[in-house]
C-alpha cells in the first residue's frame, strides 16, 4: 500500500495536449475514481502511473518517491484493463501465477498464493481453463486475481466493467469495492460512468479536456459542484442547466419566474436537479419532448428555449403529453448559480 501523487503532470501527443498540469494526491488505501468523458485524459493519467506513458513534464510519485523514469516492472503496481488483457495461451492458474513467476518466489509459495487468489475471486473450479473458455465476468475475475496475487502497492483499473452486461456490472462493482476494502490497497479506478464513480469511490476526481475540474467525495460533488461541467456530469440524470436572468432575487426566463436566489444581477446559468424541478403553472414555459418511464418514477424530458431539462416525478403524478406545453419551477434549496461564460459556481 502506498500514496500516489501527480505533480504538475502534463502530456502532449504531438500538438494535442491531453493532460494540462495535473496535481492530485491519492491517500494510502484510498479508492479514487478518475471520472470524465472520453478524451478527457483520465486513461492517460492512469497509464502514466503504470509507466506505460511518460509525462511530457511533471512527476509521478509513489510513496513520496518519484517513479517517472522507472519502467512498469519496477513500480510494483497492478493493472486491470478494459479488455482484461489475459494471456490467451495460458490457463487461468498460469495467468494468475504470471506476475509471481517474474519474481524469485518458490514454486510451493506461488501455488499457495495462486490458490488463495483464485479462491478469493471464486475461480477455484476454473483454474485449468483457458481464457477463451470463460465468460466476460469470469475473465474479469481472472484479471482481478492476477492483480491481487502479488500484493502490489497500488491497483490501477481502466474501465474494467465496461464490457460487462448491466446486471453483472452492478454485481462486479460491489465485489471490487468489497475486495478493495478487505485488502486496503490504494486504488485508482478510471471510468466515464458516473454511477460507478458515485457508488465505488471514496473520492472522485472529475476531469474534462485534460484539466482536473474538482476532487471530492461523491456527496460533495453531487451537492456542491465547483462548476457547471461537474454539475452536469455527476448525478443521474446530471444537473439541469438553464440560462436565466437574475433580477431582484428572482431567476427569470423571458418574463416568467423559474425560482429565487440571493440578490445578484445579470445573466446566470441556473443549476437545478431533476427532483427539484416541478410542474407549476406559475413557472417558466417548457415543451415536453419525451417521457421515460422507469417504473415507480418518470423522467419528463422538456425544453426551455434552447436548454434541455429533465424533470423527475412519481409515475402516478399527472404529466403533460408529448409535444404539450407545460410550466416548470425550481423548488426547494437545490438551486445553484453558475457563471454562463466561465461555468464557475457563483453561489
Amino acid at each position, binding site marked *: 500500500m502506498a500514496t500516489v501523487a501527480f505533480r504538475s503532470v502534463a502530456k502532449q501527443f504531438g500538438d494535442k495536449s491531453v493532460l494540462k498540469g495535473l496535481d492530485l494526491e491519492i491517500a494510502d488505501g484510498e479508492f479514487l475514481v478518475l471520472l470524465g468523458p472520453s478524451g478527457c485524459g483520465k486513461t492517460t493519467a492512469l497509464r502514466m502511473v503504470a509507466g506505460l506513458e511518460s509525462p511530457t513534464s511533471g512527476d509521478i510519485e509513489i510513496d513520496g518517491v518519484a517513479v517517472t523514469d522507472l519502467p512498469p*516492472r519496477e513500480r510494483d503496481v497492478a493493472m486491470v484493463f478494459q479488455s482484461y488483457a489475459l494471456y490467451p495461451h495460458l490457463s487461468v492458474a498460469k495467468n494468475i501465477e504470471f*506476475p509471481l513467476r517474474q519474481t524469485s518466489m518458490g514454486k510451493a509459495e506461488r501455488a499457495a498464493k495462486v490458490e488463495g487468489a483464485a479462491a478469493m475471486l471464486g475461480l477455484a473450479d476454473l483454474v485449468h481453463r483457458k481464457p477463451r473458455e470463460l465468460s466476460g465476468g469470469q475473465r474479469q475475475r481472472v484479471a482481478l486475481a492476477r492483480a491481487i496475487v502479488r500484493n502490489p502497492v497500488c491497483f490501477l483499473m481502466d474501465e474494467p466493467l465496461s464490457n460487462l452486461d448491466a446486471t453483472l456490472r452492478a454485481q462486479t462493482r460491489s465485489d471490487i469495492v468489497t475486495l478493495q476494502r478487505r485488502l486496503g490497497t490504494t486504488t485508482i479506478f478510471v471510468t466515464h460512468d458516473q454511477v460507478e464513480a458515485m457508488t465505488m469511490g471514496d473520492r472522485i476526481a472529475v476531469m474534462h479536456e485534460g484539466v482536473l475540474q474538482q476532487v471530492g467525495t461523491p456527496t460533495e460533488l453531487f451537492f456542491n459542484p465547483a462548476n457547471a461541467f461537474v454539475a452536469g456530469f455527476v448525478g443521474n440524470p446530471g444537473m439541469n442547466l438553464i440560462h436565466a436572468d437574475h433580477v431582484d432575487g428572482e431567476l427569470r426566463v423571458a418574463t416568467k419566474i423559474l425560482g429565487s436566489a440571493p440578490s445578484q444581477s445579470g445573466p446566470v446559468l441556473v443549476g437545478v436537479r431533476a427532483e427539484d424541478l416541478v410542474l407549476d403553472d406559475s413557472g417558466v414555459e417548457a415543451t415536453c419532448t419525451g417521457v421515460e418511464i422507469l417504473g415507480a418514477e418518470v423522467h419528463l424530458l422538456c425544453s426551455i428555449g434552447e436548454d434541455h431539462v429533465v424533470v423527475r416525478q412519481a409515475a402516478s403524478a399527472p404529466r403533460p403529453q408529448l409535444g404539450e406545453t407545460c410550466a416548470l419551477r425550481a423548488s426547494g434549496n437545490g438551486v445553484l448559480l453558475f457563471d454562463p461564460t466561465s461555468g464557475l459556481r457563483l453561489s
Partner: protein
Amino acid sequence: MSRRLDRTKEAGLAYLLIAPAFVLALVFIIYPFMRNFSLFLYHAPPYPGLPSHFAGLSQFTTMLTSSSFLQGLEATLLYTVLVVPIGVLLGLILAVVAHQKLKGMAIYRTIFATTAVSSVAVAAVIFGTFMNPVLGLLPWLGINPNPPILQSPTWAMVAMAVIGLWQFMGLSFILFSAGLQSLPEEVLEAARIDGASEVGVFWKVTVPLLSPTIFYAITVGTIGAMYTFGQMDLLVGPFSAQYVHVNTLAYQIYQYVVTEPNPGLAACISIALFLITAVITFVNFRFLERRVTYAN
C-alpha cells in the same frame, strides 16, 4: 412459381460468376492432376503420337528403389531443413527489429520485404555473381574455394539453401510483420506491468501469441521448399546437379519432362513428392498446431 424462377436465375448467375475460376482450375489444376495419374500407370512415349502401354505400378516401384530418387529425396529434405527453420527465425528477428518505433524503419521494412517479391532468376543472378570463381565477390575477398562452391558436393547445397533462405526470409518477414501488428497491445503491456523484462515479454508472450503465424510460416515454407528447383537449374544445371547433390525431386520432375523426356517417371516422382509433402504437412498439423494458441 415466380419465387422458384428467381431462385433458378440466382443460381444461374452464381454459376456464371464462378465459371471463369472453375475453367482455370479445371485446365491448370484438376486436369493436370488427373492426367498425372494416367501417366503414372502408363509407360508413356517420350513424344506425342507414339503408342503407350499399361505399366501398372512397375514404374513407381522402379523409381522407389532407384538411387537417384533416394538421393533426390535426401537433397529435398536437406534443403527444406536448411531453409525453413532458419528462414522462420530470421524473418521473426527482422520483423521484431522493424517493428520498433524508430526513424527510418519504413525503408528497412521495404528492403527486408523485397526479397519475397524477387524472382528466383534475379536471386540466382545475384548469388551466382557473388560465387563466380573468377569475377565474383568471393575471389575479390580473397576466398577461392577449390573446387568452386557450385561444383562442390559439400557446399553446392548450402549455396542453394542460402538463395532459398534469402527469398523465404522476405515472405517470413512479411508474415511476422503482419502478425506483430495484430498483437493485442494491452496483453504485452499487462506483461510489462506484471514484472516481465522486454526479453521476457518477447519469449513468454509475443512468441506464443505469434504461434499461429509461426505455424503458417513453417507450413507454407515447407511446402515451398519441397518444390524448389529454380536456382539448381539456373546455377548448377541438370548434368552436375546429381554429382553435387542438389538434384531435388522437383528438379528431377523438370528434367524428366524437359531435358530427357520420360513422362511416366516424371508423374511417378511428382506423385511421390505430393504424398511426401502431404505427410509432412499432416505431421505439421498434428504436432505443431497443438501448440498454437488462437487468441479467441
